[in-house]
């Protein structure tokens, strides 16, 4: 065995692993098979409250084509070695680029980074896994194409394909990313290449415009799963509207969330507001402003409500800060603006327009995100607590005021019990909301790390008891989250796994799916 090797996939003998590595090197070249601990370091920065070695990869490979992936899978099937595909690998707070289980080989697809096609008439794009949002943005800008896409907050370094397969969200009217994807190419475990939807038909030119094809629609089973390696994805782009009017409405009290949601829901469902409305709590805004936690709270434990109120006053931040935009012509936006003004006045909110927002970092990055302009403004969150620990707890809620207040209070109580702050926001889909909470902790402190694990566990199970499921989870909790969705769903998933990946080589354990 390679003397330097510390980590092996579960149940694989060192000699067998060495043989497989040799064969992989033949296919990919030595430089694209990483074994050295130092070169594996980027795949081991997990941010989660568990030891790094639980998610340590045994190796990483960087194939550059579908053909190479097909050849690699043949070797991995032969040796029954598991592989964990990533695209741009920036799933920070959900497990980053590390495999779901110790010993899996990371398949890093960043070298497959071609923007294969952008159709400016149909407003579609076809991209490979390694394409970043920034790359796509630069491509559109360089060609002066008046097209926008929706991107998540860490957009400048993340990519549309990886985000979509994890069912991520963004902030333009195309913010539900899976919904606005159209057609995938997937390499299956047996090396067959499947194109979904219209892509299955030879010579079809409708792959990126019609999602459904004929018969069952398969795309969904390749998201939040481990049934194939997605190598191409079609996505819809949005024509840049003639008039874009982003705004923020600030509310002074935590309890205002009830009336905010009830007032905005009809506007969202009727698409007066066409994008995902974000309702961000003070403590989400503060670090991005930026405000230093230590100026308001030192010592252990969660920050007090009094300190939070002081932050609001000192820095002009609402208890809740609603972000949304109007997308249309000047005439339609003028008409809809009157509705927004009336709603804000009726609910006690203070509107901040783009003009009035100048100079505010927190507002600027949000307004940019709402037009799909990549930035990294939200990384300020990491300075709130410091220490590099972060996991997202993201339960789904009905878009009803009473529900939001209940979820927020429950979460805040549990977080407070373990000494953590409520750093949360609600992202209004259409009829649902993603309630996203960043559980921030100091990962260099063992005690806080243990508490963060226990806290997430309690959040998960308390919410599940109330019937609230999370929409996405970090890899350390994948199994526990999957369990909250009940046995029948899991048994169907297992049957699919058996049929599509009988050797269990594709990311076993991802989203709790394994044989």
């Amino acid at each position: 065995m390679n003397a330097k090797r510390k980590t092996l996939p579960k149940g694989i003998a060192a000699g067998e692993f060495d043989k497989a590595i040799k064969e992989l090197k033949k296919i990919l070249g030595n430089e694209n098979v990483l074994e050295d601990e130092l070169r594996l370091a980027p795949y081991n920065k997990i941010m989660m409250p568990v030891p790094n070695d639980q998610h340590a990869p045994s190796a990483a490979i960087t194939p550059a084509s579908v053909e190479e992936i097909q050849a690699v899978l043949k070797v991995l099937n032969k040796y029954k070695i598991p592989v964990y595909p990533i695209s741009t690998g920036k799933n920070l707070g959900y497990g980053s680029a590390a495999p779901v289980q110790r010993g899996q080989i990371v398949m890093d697809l960043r070298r497959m980074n071609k923007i294969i096609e952008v159709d400016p008439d149909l407003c579609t794009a076809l991209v490979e896994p390694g394409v970043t949002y920034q790359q796509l943005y630069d491509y559109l800008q360089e060609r002066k194409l008046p097209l926008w896409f929706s991107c998540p907050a860490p957009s400048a370094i993340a990519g549309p394909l990886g985000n979509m397969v994890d069912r991520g969200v963004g902030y333009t009217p195309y913010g539900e990313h899976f919904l606005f994807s159209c057609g995938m190419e997937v390499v299956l475990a047996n090396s067959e290449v499947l194109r979904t939807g219209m892509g299955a038909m030879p010579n079809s030119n409708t792959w990126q415009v019609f999602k459904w094809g004929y018969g069952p629609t398969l795309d969904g089973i390749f998201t939040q799963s481990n049934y194939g390696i997605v190598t191409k994805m079609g996505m819809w782009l949005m024509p840049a509207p003639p008039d874009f009017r982003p705004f923020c409405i600030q509310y002074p009290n935590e309890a205002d969330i009830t009336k905010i949601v009830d007032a905005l829901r009809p506007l969202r469902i009727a698409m007066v507001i066409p994008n995902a409305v974000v309702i961000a709590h003070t403590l989400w805004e503060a670090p991005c402003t930026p405000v230093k936690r230590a100026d308001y709270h030192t010592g252990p434990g969660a920050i007090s409500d009094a300190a939070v109120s002081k932050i609001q006053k000192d820095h002009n931040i609402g208890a809740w800060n609603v972000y949304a935009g109007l997308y249309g012509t000047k005439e339609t936006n003028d008409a809809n603006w009157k509705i927004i003004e009336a709603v804000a006045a009726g609910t006690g909110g203070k509107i901040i327009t783009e003009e009035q927002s100048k100079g505010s970092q927190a507002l600027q990055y949000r307004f940019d995100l709402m037009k799909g302009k990549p930035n990294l403004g939200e990384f300020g969150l990491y300075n709130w607590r410091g220490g590099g620990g972060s996991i997202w707890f993201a339960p789904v809620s009905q878009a009803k005021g009473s529900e939001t207040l209940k979820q927020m209070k429950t979460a805040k109580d549990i977080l407070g019990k373990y000494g953590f702050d409520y750093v949360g926001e609600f992202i209004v889909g259409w009829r649902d909301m993603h309630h996203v909470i960043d559980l921030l902790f100091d990962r260099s402190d063992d005690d806080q790390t243990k508490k963060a694990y226990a806290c997430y566990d309690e959040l998960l199970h308390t919410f599940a008891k109330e019937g609230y499921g999370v929409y996405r989870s970090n890899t350390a909790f994948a199994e526990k989250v999957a369990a909250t969705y009940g046995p029948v769903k899991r048994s169907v998933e297992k049957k699919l796994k058996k049929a599509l990946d009988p050797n269990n080589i594709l990311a076993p354990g991802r989203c709790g799916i394994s044989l």
Partner: protein
Amino acid sequence: MDRRNFIGTLLASGVLGATLPAARAADDLFLAGANRVLIVGQSDQPYALELTAQLGRVFTAAGIPHMQVVAGGTELAQVAHVIALLEKARGGRVIGVMDDAAAVIFQELAAARGGACVLSTHHRFGAGAVRHCCTSATLEAGIVWSEPISAQAGRIAGVYAGAIGGRQRAAPTVPATGPADGGPASLVSFLINT
């Protein structure tokens, strides 16, 4: 004038706008050397500047070719700026000393270009003391130690010099106590092979 004030004065005068003077003479050597190190310090974080300066002194004494640059937190959140810094360090190493947010961005952008973070240290400041937690791909467990802030970052600079010189890092002998939570500031330093 203490060092913090001194650096503050230099900053205000614009002298530190791009390159620290101590390193300027090393520029030519830096660009030519294979074992060169680019040290990036966050200009709006006093301790980052202090550690950056200390690293410069230790590296100069050890004969390690290096160059120091400073950048503000806003610049370190911009992809183009960070990529330009990584370009500057291409084929060599880069040491960053910055806040948590900037450190994640820097490390992730480096990783996307195949850079490997060899060593990373989290620094937590309490009243008069700083706790360092140093992790590395080659260490089984992190090394944690605390020391008075007045220790002027000498030990941590020595750890980085040791890592670059390839010498075995000895675990500091000072007991691992000190500020755990709620210390007023948090910083990260790291070493990346680009």
